[in-house]
Every structure is written in structure tokens, then in C-alpha cells.
């Protein structure tokens, strides 16, 4: 590799890392937190079978899972201004992503709650617990454990997908790489560099997942 290329890579690295820390990570964190809350509510109204809300939740999931994320982003960022709603790029991305991810994640959460055997609920009733206590103390903790690997998978997917926000002008890490590549005419090197940073980020997340899964397991270390 030429010396010039090394120089470009070396000088762009701090820049890319800066955008990673300043934009990609906060963007991912905001989206994930919001979609988790929304997904939980969507799942809950379906599990509780609250009449109107449960139907509304199903329609919501149908629409947001059935249309492409990038189209949803374009509608919010480029489309809404024509009806007088103008949002900056960053909040537009947060809203579009959250709405979209919540639809998927709500299905994970709903299925996990329903995967807790009904015998657990029945046993709860028979020791005198009420529905709320059964949900909060028995069903939801067990559902959380079932949902955890899939929900964490969504976080890993989201970290990568956040690069799509570049398409509505959010300058996150990938957009920053794009800009440097355009200036230096070294797209291959720059995009590979960005890819490597995403890979590092997700490696860290994968390790975190493994650690947390171990912490979440309901096993007492057996004394030998």
C-alpha cells in the first residue's frame, strides 16, 4: 500500500471514531431506547387484549413491518415538510427508526411473553397473587430472558443500520467516511475502514451480550 493511502487512513481514523462516538452511538442509543419502550407497550396491549388498542397495535405492526425503512425515513424527512411539519435530519432518523424497529421488537416481546408456560400463571394464582403481581414478578422476568438474545440482536442490527440515516443527510460515521472518500478518491480504503469500526463496535456488543446472558441465567453456581 502506498504511503499516501496509509496517511489518509491514519488521518481519517480519529475523524471516523469521533463521528462514531458523537453521532452513531448516540443515534443508536436514542433509537434503541425509544423503540424498546414503544415495542413493550405495543406488545402489552396485544397480550392484555385491550380491545381497540390491541387492534391498533396489530395494524401498526402491519404497516411498519410491511414498508421499507428508507421509505419511512424519506416520508418523515422529505415528505412531512410539505404538510408543514419540518424536522431536522437527526430527529427524523430517530423517529423513523424507532417506529420501524418497535414494530419488529414488539413481535419479539409479544411472542416471548406468550412463550412463558401458562402453568406459571396458574401457579401464581394458586398461591394468591393477583394478575399484576404475576405479570411483574413471574411472567415478565421470564419473558425478558427469552426475548433477550433476539432483542440484543436487534441492537447489533441497529448499530449497522444506523448508517442508513446518511441517506437523509445525517452525518454519522458512514456519511463522514463518504465525505472523506469523495475528497481523497479512496472509496475502497475508507469504506473498509468504516466497516472495520462497525465490526469492532459489534464485537464489543457481542461480548457484552455473552456476559449479560450469563448474568441473567437462573442457575446457582453449584458447589463441587
Amino acid at each position, binding site marked *: 500500500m502506498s504511503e499516501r493511502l496509509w496517511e489518509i487512513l491514519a488521518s481519517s481514523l480519529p475523524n471516523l471514531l469521533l463521528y462514531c462516538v458523537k453521532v452513531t452511538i448516540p443515534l443508536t442509543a436514542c433509537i434503541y431506547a425509544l423503540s424498546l419502550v414503544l415495542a413493550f407497550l405495543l406488545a402489552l396491549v396485544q397480550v392484555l387484549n385491550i380491545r381497540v388498542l390491541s387492534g391498533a397495535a396489530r395494524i401498526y405492526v402491519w404497516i411498519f413491518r410491511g414498508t421499507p425503512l428508507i421509505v419511512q425515513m424519506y416520508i418523515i424527512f422529505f415528505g412531512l415538510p410539505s404538510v408543514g411539519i419540518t424536522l431536522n435530519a437527526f430527529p427524523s432518523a430517530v423517529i423513523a427508526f424507532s417506529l420501524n424497529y418497535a414494530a419488529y421488537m414488539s413481535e419479539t416481546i409479544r411472542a416471548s411473553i406468550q412463550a412463558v408456560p401458562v402453568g406459571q400463571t396458574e401457579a401464581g394464582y394458586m398461591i394468591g397473587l393477583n394478575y399484576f403481581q404475576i405479570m411483574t414478578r413471574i411472567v415478565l422476568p421470564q419473558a425478558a430472558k427469552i426475548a433477550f438474545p433476539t432483542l440484543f440482536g436487534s441492537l447489533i442490527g441497529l448499530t449497522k443500520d444506523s448508517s442508513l440515516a446518511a441517506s437523509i443527510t445525517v452525518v454519522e460515521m458512514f456519511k463522514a467516511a463518504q465525505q472523506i472518500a469523495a475528497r481523497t478518491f479512496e472509496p475502497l480504503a475508507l469504506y473498509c475502514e468504516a466497516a472495520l469500526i462497525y465490526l469492532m463496535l459489534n464485537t464489543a456488543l457481542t461480548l457484552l451480550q455473552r456476559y449479560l446472558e450469563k448474568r441473567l441465567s*437462573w442457575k446457582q453456581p453449584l458447589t463441587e
Partner: protein
Amino acid sequence: MLEVKNLRCSYGANQVLKDINFRVDKGEVIAIVGSSGSGKTTLLRSISFLHKADGGTIRFFDFEKDITRLKGSEIRRLRMRLGYVFQNFNLFRNMTVRQNVMEGLVTARHMDRAEAEKITDAVLEKVDMLERADYYPDQLSGGQQQRAAIARSIAFRPDVLLLDEPTSSLDPELTREVLNILTQLAADGITMVVVTHEMGFARNVANRVIFMEGGVVVEDAPAAEFFNHPKQEATKRFLRTVTDDCG
């Protein structure tokens, strides 16, 4: 103490319980026997409101009401006084044995923690599970899980303990473990209704045996009489089959 009259229950178009009359007195140990599909489990489930009955009345001490008209709060109050042991244990998987037992005392009955701990230790001792109090259900054998489940349902001193085939998913050795505990509880004077296929247990421990077939009570008699001088043809037939099975 506990009585149901004209209890009817169905799964869809299939009527599983047809006008069951059934009563338990204090200190009694009742064994409900019969072949699979005779309605034994449904009977237990409907008197604990896990399965909605189609009709009938329930009396519990001086409380008496149409079973289909019970309010949620009444159901909960009645359940507070019933212990239930499931065929497949149903221990809370996210809790240790100790937490499983404490849950009904502290969360459901708002008992003081220290007092609840004392009771928990005592009941775990009784079922010989104190050493494994800090294990999670997945780390225990079936017999241990069932013993823990029994501890969980006797901890709050229910007026009646209902047991739905408590040994059906256990191998012979573990079955013996659990039956020994139940025999001990019977000796302690705990009122029990046990749905069981264990004829030895029914004969030796139960005061009364109820034989069900096709959703009706065919025979309801003191244990000795039931096994030595059954009145109904169906009972004789049933007893012949189960004794043949035992060799």
C-alpha cells in the same frame, strides 16, 4: 368445609363433568381415582377456578355461591385458602426454591419477611429440601421440584390442599419420595384431595376414595370399603384392571 353441588363443566361441546356433587371435611384425605379422561383433573381445576365451570354451587365454610357468578375478588379470596400442587410442579423458574415458597407469603399475603423466612425454613425442612433452598428449579430433579412445590403450597397453611396427579411425571423412586411426604402431611392432619393413579397410596393413606368415570362420580366410599367391597360394577372393573396392571 368445601362442597360443590351439581358441578358441570365442558370443553367446547364435550361435557367433562356432569352434575358432580362432592364434599370435603376437615382433616380428610380424599383420593380421586379413575382412568384418564374421566374428569378428575377438571374437577380439581374447576373447584380452584383454573377452569371455568358451566354451572353448580360452591360452599366453603359459610360462604356459598353459584360458581359461575363469583367475582374476581371472591375467587382470589377463596384461592388464598386453597393449596394446589400441579402434575408438572410449575415452580417459578426465575426464582430459587426459597423464593418460590416466600412469594405466596410475602407478596401475596404481605407477611413480615423475617416471619416468612422462618416459615419457609420450616416447610422446606418438612419436605427435606432445606439443603437445596437456594437452587433454581432447573437444577433439581422432578422429585425435588415436586417436594418444593408441595412446600410452596403448604407454607400459607391452606384449608385444603389439592393435588393433581402429583407423582404422574415422576419415576418410581421419585414417586416414593413424594408419596412419603404426602403420607406425613396426612398424618399431620392436613386436609387433602389427591387425584392419583397410585392405588397403594389411596388404600393406605386416604380416608375416602372417589371413583370417577365419564364425568360422573360412580362411587364414593371409605377407603377400606372401596377396595374390599366395591358396590358398583364399574368400580369392580376398574379395580380389576389396575390390580392386573400391577401384576
